[in-house]
């Protein structure tokens, strides 16, 4: 009870642009270091040390990009839609800026998932593209992300654009469980999920370990990208405020000393 109370206070303070700007400035170097390290270790481990797949040979190594990117594409959609919902209910501008940031990053992750999947399809399915249930629903996810991005920017009144973007994002959430379930509901070409929470994963431990490292690396990179996008957004919208002017004056002074 007490803990959740404190958590809410933190959430509330993070919704202050100035506070988030200050805190994220301190966190970003660590996020950068941690994500680069994990991605480097994961790639080295996955591409060079993990054993080749018995049937797919070395082409299976694309999994170390494909699966983490797909994870973030889907989780990122929930982050974006939830931020939009918070913005609609509590009218906090930070939530809408978070939504805008998450839309761009999510679209990039979805593109990586689709691109890596298409490349992987060539050696394993014999074709770059199939209108398979999983692939098609992921393509719809990309269009939803692009739709939200376009909607936010489509109005002269930016508040109206943000609200409409949030609503479109919320409607689109219906697609996310469909993507998760698509490999079970329709037995088309895409293989079922490799990682399972409740039962044992269908992947050998030597291949699984680097995959988990890559997933952690992708999550940290996602957090880093959110911080960077959100800071740019905050600075842009708050450039008329006194705290941004003070920040610039201080930067100028530092440069004068140097």
């Amino acid at each position, binding site marked *: 009870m007490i803990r959740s109370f404190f958590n809410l206070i933190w959430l509330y303070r993070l919704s202050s642009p100035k506070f988030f700007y200050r805190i994220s400035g301190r966190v970003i170097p660590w996020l950068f270091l941690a994500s680069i390290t994990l991605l480097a270790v994961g790639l080295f481990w996955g591409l060079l040390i993990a*054993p080749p797949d018995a049937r797919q040979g*070395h082409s299976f*190594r*694309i999994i170390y*990009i494909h699966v983490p990117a797909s994870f973030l594409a889907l989780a990122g959609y929930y982050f974006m839609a939830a931020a939009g919902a918070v913005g609609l209910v509590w009218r906090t501008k930070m939530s809408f800026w978070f939504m805008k940031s998450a839309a761009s990053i999510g679209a*990039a992750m979805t593109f990586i998932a689709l691109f890596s999947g298409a490349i992987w399809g060539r050696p394993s399915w014999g074709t770059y593209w199939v209108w398979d249930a999983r692939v098609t629903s992921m393509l719809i996810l990309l269009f939803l992300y692009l739709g939200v991005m376009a909607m936010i920017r489509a109005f002269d009144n930016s508040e109206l654009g943000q609200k409409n973007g949030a609503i479109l994002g919320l409607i689109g959430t219906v697609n996310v469980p469909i993507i998760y379930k698509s490999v079970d509901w329709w037995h088309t070409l895409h293989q079922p999920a490799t990682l399972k929470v409740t039962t044992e994963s269908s992947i050998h431990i030597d291949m699984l370990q680097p995959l988990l490292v890559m997933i952690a690396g992708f999550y940290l990179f996602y957090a880093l990208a959110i911080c960077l996008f959100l800071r740019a957004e905050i600075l*842009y919208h708050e*450039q008329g405020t006194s705290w941004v002017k003070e920040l610039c004056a201080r930067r100028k002074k530092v440069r004068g000393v140097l």
Partner: protein
Amino acid sequence: MAIQFSSWLELIDMGGHGIFVWTTVSVSLLIFLILVLLPVSAHSRTLKNVELNMEFEARSLQNADADK
């Protein structure tokens, strides 16, 4: 726990699958790079804009004083 490839050529070729694997990896890393550079450049653009505005304001204040 040993490296699966005995030479650089073998690593690049990956049994004929190298082109697929390395294309995926390099395109993804390129997109990651863009995801970092886009917000960083937008951030510094805004900072520069604010500094220019502040300089302009300071100068117009000086001019107003000089006119008096």
